[in-house]
């Protein structure tokens, strides 16, 4: 009995291993260090977004605005990061604060107006896209300083810088969620909001905090993306929210709230990355790549609901 339960819990992990083993057999390039460095670099942006949205989904909310936040913060960053304009810290702060601000705005509207998070963040998503287009006049902003481009393209001891950011953010997020009082409040709010409120948790404050965190991480993702492609693009990040939510869901975060881990989400992120990478290596047509991704998302949710049923 115990082993069957374990098997279900680790279902995603097993699926992940199976995919990796298959890819290793059919593509000799798959299991090389250089390929894995590439996979981790490519998933870094989605990982930052997925970590943020995991917090939000655990509280029972959703954030659809993150793709637009990536664009706005990217444009703000690019505007501030021309060569010899400001010290490096200014564009970075600009990007982070932009993300944080939009996150707080989301949280404020959701807690004060009692409008569903889905609707609020949908509105902010559209507004954000518009703002990015307004600031940039609909054109990409290029000619950025070399020091800034290091964030997305540089290496330390052979490890691409985006991977270092990924490791740091992953560590911080999982400690916050697992080991702190705040983390427990996040689960409590998502598990049963009334009960959390009755036991003296400031529900609104917790919600504000998760949206702010999600915004902040989206801002960071915007900085990373802008630096990686060395331009700020107003149409960057379209559909990123869906990739991030997909990663969280594949990683076992329950869309009804109260369940989810940062490690699980990281697995979801890597699974998506491995699939994209592997299907490219095998030269599988883009048509099939989309079908494969959809099957995995639905499979993950099925597994999740199966888990819930058998556990209760």
């Amino acid at each position: 009995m115990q082993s069957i339960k374990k098997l279900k819990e680790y279902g995603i992990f097993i699926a992940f291993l199976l995919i990796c083993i298959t890819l290793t057999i059919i593509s000799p390039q798959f299991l090389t260090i250089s390929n894995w460095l590439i996979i981790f670099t490519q998933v870094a942006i989605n990982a930052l977004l997925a970590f943020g949205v995991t917090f939000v989904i655990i509280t029972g909310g959703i954030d659809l605005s993150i793709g637009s936040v990536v664009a706005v913060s990217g444009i703000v960053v690019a505007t501030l990061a021309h060569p010899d304009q400001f010290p490096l810290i200014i564009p970075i702060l600009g990007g982070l604060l932009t993300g944080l601000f939009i996150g707080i705005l989301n949280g404020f509207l959701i807690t004060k107006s009692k409008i569903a998070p889905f609707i609020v963040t949908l509105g902010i998503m559209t507004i954000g896209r518009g703002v990015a287009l307004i600031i940039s006049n609909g054109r990409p902003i290029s000619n950025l300083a070399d020091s800034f481009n290091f964030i997305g393209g540089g290496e330390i001891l052979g490890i691409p810088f985006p991977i270092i950011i990924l490791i740091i953010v992953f560590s911080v997020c999982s400690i916050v969620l697992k080991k702190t009082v705040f983390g427990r409040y996040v689960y409590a709010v998502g598990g049963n909001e009334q009960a959390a409120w009755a036991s003296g948790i400031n529900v609104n404050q917790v919600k504000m905090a998760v949206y702010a965190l999600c915004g902040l991480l989206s801002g960071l993702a915007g900085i990373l993306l802008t630096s990686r492609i060395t331009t700020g693009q107003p149409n960057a990040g379209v559909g990123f929210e869906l990739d991030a939510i997909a990663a969280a869901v594949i990683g076992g975060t329950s869309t009804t709230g109260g369940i989810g881990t940062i490690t699980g989400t990281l697995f979801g992120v890597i699974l998506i990355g491995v699939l994209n990478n592997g299907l490219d290596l095998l030269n599988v047509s883009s048509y099939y790549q989309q079908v494969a991704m959809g099957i995995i998302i639905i499979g993950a949710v099925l597994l999740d609901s199966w888990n819930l049923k058998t556990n209760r």
Partner: protein
Amino acid sequence: MKNHIFLLTFTCLFIACNSSKKEEKDQIVVGATMLSMQTEFIVNISDEMQKKADEMGVKLILVDAERSPLKQMEQVESFIAQKVDLIVINPCEVEASSPAVARAIAAKIPIVGVNSATTIAPNAFVGSDDVEAGRIAMKYIAEKLGGKGNVLMITGFIGQSAQIQREKGANEVLKSYPNIKLLATQAADWDRAKGMDLMQNWIQSYGTKINAVFSQSDEMALGAVKALQASNMKDKVIVVGIDAIQDALQAVKKGEMDATVFQNSKQQGAGAIETALKLAKKQSVEKQTIIPFQLVTKENLSEFLK
């Protein structure tokens, strides 16, 4: 032709000075629906249209179809309801935007297509033939390779007319070079970051076998260049894009990209408005004005740099 423009400008100025109340009735109103105002090239065409409209004293209503053929049709319908004098359409899609053209024709409002084609022909079309762009780019690669080598193709968003036609043109050229092998074709959705990711993955699977990359847009080509640079392979691989955006021209200047293909937004935008106004005055127009693409390399770069 120039005389007419002057005449029209004067007429409009005259009207504008004479009676501001009557202005709304007498001024020619052009409704224009554009594929996407989030794409630099389309924004450039729109700007040129606006410039020309201002110059000729025409009122231009510019709307964004946001890549949705359905939205585009609704916009054309509302233009018809507003009784505009002329419609300019920059189609979202070859087939799906055709009904919009048909509505305008049925409402007897002259409609001019700009940039890309529709199955149902508008009264006049001003634009470029994307098949030609694909041909020019691939031909350059084939000649650079001396007719022998391995090529990768990065395509735009699958199913869009620019993607289909640029691929068609490239494949036509490849047919006449049997010793050039197309290793793989994958989509990167016109996106620079996606182009970079795809190229990184390709470097893993094909490595030094890669001799050239044809990217259907400059954005994706610039992403591919970044990936190649990171692997120290740029010197050995030819990279060619399409669109001649400023970033790409800079890259050609620095030798990071080998060539790009210039699409003339100025002639397309201004041409569309001019043609529309001729239609309004019932003058004869060319059914199709094809503005040629031009190959841009280091040699002729200075003509295109802003």
